[in-house]
């Protein structure tokens, strides 16, 4: 599974979506499609760290790095330049 699909799967399972039949587009703002609570935020950070072997530090914990599939992929790419997409 590619990076985009993997992240989409993660979001579909874990995001507390406002809408029952959620489809998450690559550029969709997940903070508008679902309720991002503390548990989900921690889960998402842990997922990105583990799956892509990167360290998410305080400066990286920015809404703009996690707001959509695109931005998460870009963020991972920046942190880890040899990522294959």
């Amino acid at each position: 599974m590619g990076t985009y699909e993997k992240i989409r799967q993660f979001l579909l399972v874990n995001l507390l979506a406002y809408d029952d039949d959620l489809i998450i587009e690559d550029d969709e703002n997940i903070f508008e499609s679902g309720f991002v609570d503390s548990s989900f935020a921690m889960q998402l950070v842990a997922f990105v760290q583990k799956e892509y072997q990167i360290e998410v530090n305080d400066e990286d914990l920015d809404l703009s790095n996690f707001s959509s599939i695109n931005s998460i992929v870009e963020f991972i790419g920046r942190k880890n330049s040899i990522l294959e997409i």
Partner: protein
Amino acid sequence: MCGLKEIKCVVWDLDNTVWDGIILEGDEVKLKPGIKTVIETLDNRGILNSISSKGNYEDAMQKLKEFNLHKYFLYPQISWNAKSISIAKIQQILNISMDTFMFVDDQRFERDEVRSEHPEILCIAAEEYKNMLSCPYLKPKFITQDSKRRRLMYMEDNQRKKDEDLFNGPRKDFLQSLNIHFTISEAKDDDLERAEELTIRTNQLNATGKTYSYDELKKIMGSESHRLLACEMRDKYGTYGKIGIALTEDSEDYVHIKLLLMSCRVMSFGVGTVLLSYIMQEARKNGQKVRADFKHTGRNKIMYTTFKFGNFKEVLKNESDIILENDVSFIQDFPPYVKVTTP
């Protein structure tokens, strides 16, 4: 203001600690004189009791039932595991930090084994049990409604977790089925004791690691520019009691969050974010932005993440003291599975 360490859970050995004699050796065991009062009193003070003992689970539980003591112990660990492992299990389930545990055992070897793995635990010898009730660590300053119900609340949590494990389907549907009510209100006089208790007990979801005393809070409540909000939560299993507070200071341009904390028992319901959203909505109505004090305490990373994912940005950093700011341009709606009541 430190040194207010409080024990939240006492873990007991059984043989020759709670009772005289060893079950497996066929002894007719007898409760130590006065031990029942000690356990009941701790329970009444809101301190949890659990067990880490070696032996056969069924036999030991049977004995505890005969003594009518079984109901007081949460998640008893009776097995052949090292006691440090049993205690780690209890700690994980209760989700309270290791340095709030006390371990009572007659054998020095067991105390040393636990201490070597968990140096932050207070280990005491069995014969000390007579002095326990006057030990300052085991005497919370206030006994609130919530402390008296604490064991029951943990048991309700347990039922909730079991149901969640058995529930097939998305987490959202499960949360929906809980029928959660979250009430935010202005703190009243009788909330202050609980508020002080919360500031002392809460570590993971504490934005500043600061503690406020009853008197300090009382003074703040009387001040025009401050607001003290208390949160309460209940669901179909029962009430969680007062589980969060926020202290804010108003100025012309800002609502400044001086203190924000949530009991870790409600972490998985997203209600911390609900409280933040409410504060932001109010600020937006009044044309203010929101600022928040934050300090890394080594334990409150989740609170930091909550702020950052809530669109807060660092505007000031002085060593570990941070001020976060939110321009209230984006505020999350309340989650659909929570019924929120605001002041």
